């Protein structure tokens, strides 16, 4: 049954006869197709009388060779005849691969596509932001439609579950800033300024920024994947037909949860980072914690806290909307969910940093520095 396919040739007066033998099934073909391709002309017939078993792939191999060389097929048994006839009927041009444009055309095309994509994403996000505002307004006018449970549930996922990782990360960041800062400041003999560095930097920038990055990675991506999957399984369409607005039921609770959680997490992150900084100061700079706290109260103005707390909800809106927007854009397949999730995180972090730069300019302008 598993005898390998083989061929022998026999010279006749009016051309060669190829005699195939063995098992012409896909498992036993081995290099037979390649050897058959080696024949060019003057093959009169292909003899199948010594073939034990044949499948459609064997039949196709025989058919294509016979068709190419103009040879007759002889000695085929009932099975072989049936299969060769069957595949022969299917021998017509079939498109297998998509057409490929020349490389320069593709490159130009890809650049154009990237530009239009970037533009449409920006407009799309703006539009999505607008739609969420409209929905918010509708909810303010009909507060009974507000889904308290959905929001509270998100509080836990977005906020409480993130406490551990954000705390650990902030603590380490605090240590790193204090350590790196003290090395530089020591050159001027001003190690005490490490406290200024840690206190002001974490409250103004790092606490909120690192939190935003972590929340984008944890929750923004989750939003995109959740909504994307719901889109694929037509759950969102089902919602719409029932009359539930996905904006109201899915997007707003998530956005609200992130907006409420971001300042809290940002504040928490700043405090933990300062504890980290204080820890390093105590251990390696010999600044006792009590001095650290006193000095902190002197050098960090309350406006630094406000700077962080004002930025946090704005970052929250960006993260939640980027996640939800990308999730809602999923159309085709599971792979797109992955791509959209990546895009959600990348866009959220990018936009957060852009807006952060604007905030820096703005707060300097209003004199909070």
């Amino acid at each position, binding site marked *: 049954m598993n005898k390998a396919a083989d061929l022998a040739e026999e010279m006749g007066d009016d051309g060669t006869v190829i005699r195939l033998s063995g098992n012409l099934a896909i498992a036993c073909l081995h290099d037979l197709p390649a050897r058959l391709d080696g024949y060019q002309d003057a093959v009169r017939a292909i003899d199948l009388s010594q073939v034990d078993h044949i499948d459609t792939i064997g039949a196709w191999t025989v058919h294509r060779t016979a068709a190419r060389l103009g040879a007759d097929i002889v000695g085929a048994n009932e099975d072989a005849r049936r299969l060769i006839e069957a595949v022969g009927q299917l021998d017509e041009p079939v498109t297998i691969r998509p*057409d490929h444009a020349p490389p320069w055309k593709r490159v130009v095309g890809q650049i154009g596509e990237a530009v239009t994509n970037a533009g449409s994403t920006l407009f799309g996000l703006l539009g999505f932001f607008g739609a969420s505002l409209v929905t918010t307004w509708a909810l303010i006018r009909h507060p009974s439609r507000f889904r308290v449970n959905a929001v509270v549930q998100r509080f836990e996922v977005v906020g409480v579950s993130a406490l551990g990782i954000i705390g650990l990360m902030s603590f380490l960041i605090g240590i790193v800033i204090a350590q790196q800062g003290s090395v530089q400041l020591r050159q001027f003999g001003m190690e005490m300024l490490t406290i200024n560095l840690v206190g002001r930097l974490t409250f103004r920038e790092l606490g909120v920024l690192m939190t935003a990055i972590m929340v984008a990675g944890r929750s923004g991506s989750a939003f995109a994947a959740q909504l994307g999957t719901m889109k694929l399984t037509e759950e969102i369409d089902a919602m719409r037909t029932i009359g539930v607005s996905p904006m109201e039921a899915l997007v707003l609770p998530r956005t609200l949860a992130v907006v409420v959680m971001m300042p809290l997490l940002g504040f928490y992150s700043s405090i933990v980072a300062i504890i980290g900084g204080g820890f390093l100061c105590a251990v390696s700079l010999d600044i006792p914690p009590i001095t650290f706290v006193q000095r902190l109260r002197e050098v960090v103005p309350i406006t630094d806290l406000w700077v962080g707390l004002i930025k946090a909800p704005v970052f929250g809106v960006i993260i939640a909307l980027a996640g939800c927007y990308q999730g809602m854009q999923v159309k085709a397949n599971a792979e797109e969910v992955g791509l959209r999730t990546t895009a959600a995180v990348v866009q959220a972090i990018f936009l957060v940093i852009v807006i952060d730069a604007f905030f820096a300019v703005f707060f300097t302008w209003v004199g909070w520095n």
Partner: protein
Amino acid sequence: MSEVDAQQAEENRIDEAVERSDIAIEVRGLRNSFGDQVVHENLDLDVRKGEILGVVGGSGTGKSVLMRAIIGLQNPDAGDICVFGKSMIGELNDDEALAIRKRWGVLFQGGALFSTLTVAENVEVPIREYYPNIGPALRDEIAAYKIRMTGLPAEAGPKYPAELSGGMRKRAGLARALALDPDLLFLDEPTAGLDPIGAAAFDDQTRRLQQTLGLTVFLITHDLDTLYSICDRVAVLADKRVIAVGTIAELLATDHPWIQEYFNGPRGRAATAAVEREKNKAASTPPDGRR
């Protein structure tokens, strides 16, 4: 035990083995459960070589679970499953498992096409995986005739699954299932979600492929028309086991309430009537005049 008895027993065993050699799948004493919920209990089933066996049963009776158990996607709690005389439970090594796996093709309910590959690439996956010796040109040609064989249009090759209609996706899945010329074909509700014309065409295609390629088909279906038009035998799943196997006429002769309700319900009667009409039409047409 005396020697004569032993010899007799041995002969019986051989006889049985010879008799069984026309059995493609043999399931004995199968038990499947998910947690506390027992899906199958002591389930026996034979699938003969070269037949189309329809498997029917109410929702949740474990038709798909049975298929998944046979193809090794679900580990049963107990029982034995033999495919082509090889037990699939337990000590099968990787090579043997691979050898069996190459001999069957599976069409999952949604087609289960790889969504990042085109139709042609989907069909080529098993060939590429198992037979790298087949060159790219021949592989493309094989994919081409498989695509045509399952009734897909010639321009379907470069399309992605998301661009196909449900019926075309099923056909593409069938083309992939047939890529290696399997002896055994598993179809999980192939006509579900197709329009009647598409479903009838799919049935017709299945029958024709089965005859041309000499396939054994394990067909899970809810479609009474499919049962009547192409199945050689039908197995009925109920009460956690196969309660009856046979031709539809034989099944109708049993008095199990579910079977009676299934085949004699309004839809069952309609399908029977349709088959009767076909028969009468065939009888009234002269033998050489093809319809």
